[in-house]
């Protein structure tokens, strides 16, 4: 059961990105950055990690002349995150 605790979500930033994307369809980089209160470099490295796992997908577009990158959680990502939450829940229930 403990195995379901997903190492990918152990970082605060990755956990945050997933939490936000679970309840929002397409969220852009800057909004994520504001919500999580992290630096550009920090956020983008965690996003790359999540993308490599196929937990989130990326969309790039131009708003006027400025590029805008948005993210959405994938089916896999949703499932992985839910399993992770379930595991956390079990773990905490087991303790009480």
């Amino acid at each position, binding site marked *: 059961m403990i195995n379901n605790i997903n190492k990918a979500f152990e970082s605060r930033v990755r956990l945050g990105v997933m939490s936000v994307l679970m309840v929002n369809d397409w969220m852009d980089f800057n909004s994520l950055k504001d919500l999580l209160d992290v630096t550009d470099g920090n956020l983008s490295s965690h996003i790359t990690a999540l993308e490599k796992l196929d937990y989130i997908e990326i969309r790039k577009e131009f708003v006027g002349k400025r590029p805008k990158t948005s993210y959405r959680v994938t089916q896999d990502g949703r499932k992985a995150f839910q399993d992770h939450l379930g595991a956390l829940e079990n*773990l905490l229930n087991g303790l009480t």
Partner: protein
Amino acid sequence: MEDKSHIEHLAEIRSLMERSSRFISLSGLSGIMAGTYALVGAYIARLYIKNSESYIEFIEGYSTRYVATSWTEFKVFILLGIAVAALSIATGFLLTMKRAKKNNQNMLDKSALRMLINLAIPLAAGGAFCTILLYQGYIGMVAPATLIFYGLSLVNGSKYTLDTIRHLGIVEIIIGLIAAIDLGNGLFYWALGFGVMHIVYGTAMWWKYERAK
């Protein structure tokens, strides 16, 4: 030690989900202020009606047309309404900005924009519809229609903000419907819906979310 960090994780997840999908910084205090402005506005309107000849018609119950007895009188009402709305919006904006700062939420982030757009759709429809009512001469129906549409827009916008707003919306719709049956007392229902209810729900919101903890 392990489990403590897990509990913190869960708390963080919850807070982020909430903060990113709902605009939680609406200020209850601004509701109280808006309600007060509305009551003052209604009181001035009442004095105005009392002092004008059209008051006779008003108390005799042919009140659907009392406002229209003179164009200048009518303009006073519209101006009063606009003044109350403008003051309320300005106060709401300022107080909410303050709260947003405290909650670390951007005043114009995605959740706020979503809330505003969803509020605006029924509200704009209502504004257009009321203008049409005026144009067609159904003046008595304007007050009920503003209340109903305002209520609908609150219910619609409430999906993206505090739940209290949804209750307020439903109450406004009910008051609007009653006002449509009890035609001619538009001013009374306006004062009730826009004045008293804003104060009641503003206080409730303030009590629930803002009270110094």
